[in-house]
């Protein structure tokens, strides 16, 4: 299990390969990569991500440990960046390894649902017409109910 909270860029493909190489017993590997999306208007200049150092590590470790136990994962990985990003930058990634695909998929979705609403990150969009904090979506809160 590896949790990385970092300002630095990561190479999604290299991380995926390194993760896969370490998981000899697993038949199924799922990755999710989140990329800064442009606004509906197409005028995003940058995305800023703020976090709560200390609590972020604790929250992600707790969430990842829960996923490991609940789905008998062979391994899991969470990378989340903070700082200022251009549109189309990879900002986070999770990976899960399990014997069967159902567990790998479920654990990855669980990790994402918790990351969205329970890990202390906040996103701010900087556009040509102004800046604004991204509002939490009701769907994201609702998504937690299924677990």
């Amino acid at each position, binding site marked *: 299990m590896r949790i990385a909270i970092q300002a630095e860029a990561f190479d999604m493909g290299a991380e995926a390969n390194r993760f896969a190489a370490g998981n000899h017993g697993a038949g199924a590997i799922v990755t999710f990569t989140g990329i800064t999306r442009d606004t509906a208007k197409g005028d995003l200049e940058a995305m800023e991500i703020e976090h709560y150092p200390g609590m972020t590590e604790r929250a992600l470790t707790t969430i990842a440990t829960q996923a490991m136990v609940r789905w008998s994962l062979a391994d899991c990985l969470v990378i989340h960046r903070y700082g200022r990003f251009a549109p189309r930058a990879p900002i986070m990634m999770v990976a899960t390894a399990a014997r069967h695909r159902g567990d790998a998929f479920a654990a990855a979705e669980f990790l994402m649902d918790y990351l*969205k*609403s*329970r890990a202390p990150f906040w996103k701010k969009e900087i556009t040509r017409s102004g800046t604004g904090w991204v509002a939490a979506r009701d769907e994201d809160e609702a998504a937690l109910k299924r677990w």
Partner: protein
Amino acid sequence: MIDLLYFAWVRERIGLPREQVETNAATVAELIAELSAREERYALAFADLASLRVALDQELADFDAPLTGVREVAIFPPMTGG
């Protein structure tokens, strides 16, 4: 003495990321009421409790959670990671 931390627009409205306060508040709700009574910027930042979340010593908590023994209180909007 409690360390108070603010994030995102709560931080922006209050105008600082952290401060230390001397308080006798028994719960987070009481602490928030105390600060809101003290200065306009707190009252504005804390006006809508439904849009706030709180962590005590880096664990999410409710507004009526007791502050006994707590050293670090963080107040922030709903999280938007991922």
